[in-house]
């Protein structure tokens, strides 16, 4: 693999992990606009443990992820009192506050950034992203995913059927935060440098964009959306300065034609219906 191709695929792997971190709470109807903050917690947490306490990477990365998940859990409890747009805005504010806190933390370099010594190669990143995808595929086949959909579709009915609505929401939010922290921790070890400015609101917002573009009805949507958003601007590189403008026009036109996103449940049904016909 050429260095360029590897670089693009690594970016893709990070985007896929971030996309699933957004997807999980969204599957329960919550828009998390602060995913970058949780990535920052994972990144700084793992970097700090390996740098200052000489922890091995395999121990520091999960702890970074857990720290992000725990923050999600603790913050999720009060924040999830809010609904809809209020919740989205609270997560947005949370993401901003978290990255601003790291920007001011002198123990991790403050605004100058924080070099990380331990290195995770591309293969580790690919394996991690594949692991996240497999975990999501597994979750999508459990009762948990079904209950998340129920909470999203109609919280009242879900509540009446005995689904612990509040608990499901907090669980989805914290799990998403953990996935984000996991991706962030690997990001720190792959690039060997973290700076708070990277984890800004645009990172959060664009990740949400991948997910909605890919479609939230099935578990495949975030994967397809992240792949599309990573690879297509690379293909458009020939048109150089116009590429993001062309890309933006494409997004607008596409969403106007297909507001449910690229991958929908109906698409899958179509495939399934065709398959038995072909065999009979």
């Amino acid at each position, binding site marked *: 693999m050429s260095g360029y191709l590897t670089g693009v695929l690594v970016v893709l792997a990070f985007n896929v992990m971030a996309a699933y971190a957004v997807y999980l709470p969204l599957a329960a109807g919550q828009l998390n606009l602060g995913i970058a903050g949780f990535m920052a917690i994972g990144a700084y947490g793992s970097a700090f443990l390996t740098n200052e306490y000489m922890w091995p990477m395999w121990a520091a990365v999960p702890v970074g992820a857990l720290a992000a998940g725990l923050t999600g859990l603790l913050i999720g409890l009060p924040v999830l009192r809010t609904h809809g747009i209020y919740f989205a805005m609270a997560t947005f504010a949370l993401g901003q*506050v978290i990255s601003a806190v790291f920007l001011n933390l002198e123990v991790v370099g403050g605004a100058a950034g924080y070099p990380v010594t331990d290195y995770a190669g591309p293969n580790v990143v690919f394996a991690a992203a594949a692991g996240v995808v497999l975990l999501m595929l597994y979750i999508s086949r459990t009762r948990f995913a079904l209950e998340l959909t129920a909470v999203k579709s109609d919280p009242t009915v879900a509540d009446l059927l005995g689904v612990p609505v509040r608990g499901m929401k907090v669980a989805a939010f914290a799990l998403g935060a953990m996935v984000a922290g996991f991706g962030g921790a690997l990001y720190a070890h792959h690039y060997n440098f973290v700076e708070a400015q990277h984890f800004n609101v645009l990172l959060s917002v664009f990740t949400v964009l991948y997910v909605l573009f890919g479609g*939230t009805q099935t578990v495949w949507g975030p994967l397809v959306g992240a792949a599309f958003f990573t690879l297509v601007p690379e293909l458009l590189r020939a048109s150089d300065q116009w590429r993001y403008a062309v890309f933006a026009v494409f997004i607008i036109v596409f969403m106007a034609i297909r507001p449910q996103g690229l991958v929908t449940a109906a698409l899958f049904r179509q495939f399934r219906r065709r398959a038995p016909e072909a065999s009979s």
Partner: protein
Amino acid sequence: MVAQQIVNGLMLGAIYMLVAVAFTLAIGVLNFLNFSLPGLFMAGGMLAFGLMKAGWPFLLAAAGALAAAAFISLLVERFAYRPMQGGDPEVPLVSSLGFLVLLENLMLVQFGSDQQAFPALLPDLNLRIGGLVIGYAQLASLVLSLGIVAALSFVLAKTAAGRRIRTVAESRETALLMGIDIARLVPQLFVASAALAALAGILFAVNYQQVSPFMGEGVGFKGVAAMIVGGMGSIWGAVLGGLLIGLAEVVSISFIGADVVNITVYGLLLLILIVRPQGLMGRAPSREKL
């Protein structure tokens, strides 16, 4: 010193206030978190700058920028808002973000990514009251912003058009049954909120004498924060929120440092959302938004 900072904060707050009111119109009535508004804010400032560079006088250039922003906003309505009716409520977010990216990159191609100096309109004209320095341009924009918001609030409260808008905000279905022409009202609202955002962009350019293709992001997001702090859907809440956010920003820069701005501003937002989600002046939400 403190008084001067308060004055500066209020001036900055006037800009946030206009952006917040633009957002609140889109959210309160249309239920649409319109991410193209930061783009329209930037387009206002950048286009006024471009037209003045082409030799247009300021007022004409400002009018041209406002008209262009209104037109772009109609495109946003047509391609981002209208096709999404009845779908998932988060979806228009994506397309309106698409418009933000598009606008930023069009300006980038046209003007380059550097910050450009916006010409000073009133060179060095300052009002001095007992040690306080207040620029006339800043004072004029504060008065103009407050005037526009007051007029808007009057229109919403007292006129037939305002009553129609409030009906749609209350319930779209009922408004339709009452014979309100929503298909005509919605584009008008888009034009109004675009004009407010673009005007804020022009005032920002005049006051701070700089424009860049990415000037909308920071201000736009603080405008959203201002709207929520004040109370979503409430015009005077947006005014209060805008001034508060402006004050918090200027005071924390001058007393603690520029790096803590995001902690104070968004910390304030987070606190408000947890303690009083409906905002300082908002009513408790009667139905789910977004």
